[in-house]
């Protein structure tokens, strides 16, 4: 199980993957937006998206869980 967390306070602009999707290392899971910049959140290992903890429009704090990859 790998946990992907937010690096900063941001708004969730786009959720690009869905639970159950197969992802590769480096695939974009979610795109955050902070300070007029888009910040892609990437999978750090290959696996299955077990859980997405955010939805589009959510506000995440630094360290918040975004996705769980198994």
């Amino acid at each position: 199980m790998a946990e992907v967390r937010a690096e900063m306070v941001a708004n969730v602009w786009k959720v690009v993957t869905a639970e159950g999707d197969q992802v590769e290392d480096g695939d974009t899971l979610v795109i955050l937006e902070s300070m007029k910049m888009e910040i892609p959140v990437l999978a750090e290992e290959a696996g299955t998206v077990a859980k997405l903890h955010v939805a589009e429009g959510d506000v995440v704090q630094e360290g918040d869980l975004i996705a769980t990859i198994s």
Partner: protein
Amino acid sequence: MLESVLVANRGEIARRIIATTRRLGIRAVAVYSEADAGLPFVREADEAVQIGPPPPAQSYLDADAIIAAARQTGAAAVHPGYGFLSESAAFAQQVLAEGLTWVGPPPEAIEQMGDKINARNLMHRAGVPVAVGSADPVTDASAALAEAERIGYPVMVKAAAGGGGIGMSAAAGPEALQTAFDTARTRAERFFGSPAILLERFVERARHVEVQIMGLNDGHVVALGERDCSVQRRHQKVAEETPSPGVSPQVRERLLAAGVRAGEAVGYLGAGTVEFLLDVRTQEFVFLEMNTRLQVEHPVTELVTGIDLVEQQFLVAAGERPGFEPLGVQHEGHALEFRVYAEDPVRFLPSPGAITQWEQPAGPGIRVDAGYETGNTVTPFYDPLLAKLCVHGQTRDEALGRARDAVAAFRVAGPKTNLPFHADLLASESFVSGDYDTSVVAGLRP
């Protein structure tokens, strides 16, 4: 002179505009979102009206809320600052229709310059050099490929309605063009509400040099010197200086004349900036775009000319003569600006957060235009600009020395800032020598 002004902006620029209103005895009205209630600009205004929740669309971009605030406070004029509604011809029109004074150029000038393709074509007709590029919007990927073949690679792909470097990228060949085109179109639709894309020939070694102009009520347009804005990350400016160390007196004369011609072509009034790309090898320059408002980096021009550009904007808006002699402007010494962003200094990723320490430098030749102070929180809703550290010296060397000391003395805790990047920049041979181009940041952060 104007009796009162509503400042339709936030952060450092709202505070900077309010500083001039106080000096001139003009009543200042601030508008602010819920997120900004504790910022200095709200306190320093004579009156302040909360106009909505944090997202820009519901506050600083809500034209009706801003107009309502002007009515409620009896403000006589609206200064839009930069960004937000500053380049909205529709907003300018709405302000004028309310019987208020618009501190900016005529809406028609904003409209003509707002679309980059239209502006290119207009400048071309006015005899201002433009890059080889699109005369019409590029609508799909196959049209982009054909256009790139005609122009020749590498090409720059841009949103026609865009600005701030958003959605802009260079493509070396057809494959990269496909990606660049898709990115540009997505961002163009999302940020600017228009999918129109243009392509231009990419200049490999270029300096970004812009001309500050001021359109006067007697019909004259004067140029107040150039600014070099080649220090950029993600096509966004990080540091600027005037005079440009890469511009010879002959090139400067041509640049300033082209800036004036650009302003005259649209009947420009007030402060505006004409941006050019200067090819380092050939010393040829081409028109990039015109910003029909006060520019972020205007303080460097103020430092070398002694002219308060916001005051001139107010005078022009009030139908008066400028407060300086148009033909007698003297440029003294050298000035630089360093944008202090809330971002990590290596990857340049945003870093919002609560400010637990804010100590800004002061002293001879130092000017800090700051939007924040200790106790404020930097939120993710707006751009990451915290402050502009500006320095002035009799020579470029003196100004660089002052900048090094000032960067070292600037202490911000809480959000990460790019101050360590500025220290690196000020220690780099390329920047210090003055012989740098738009790739200087990439060279420092490979």
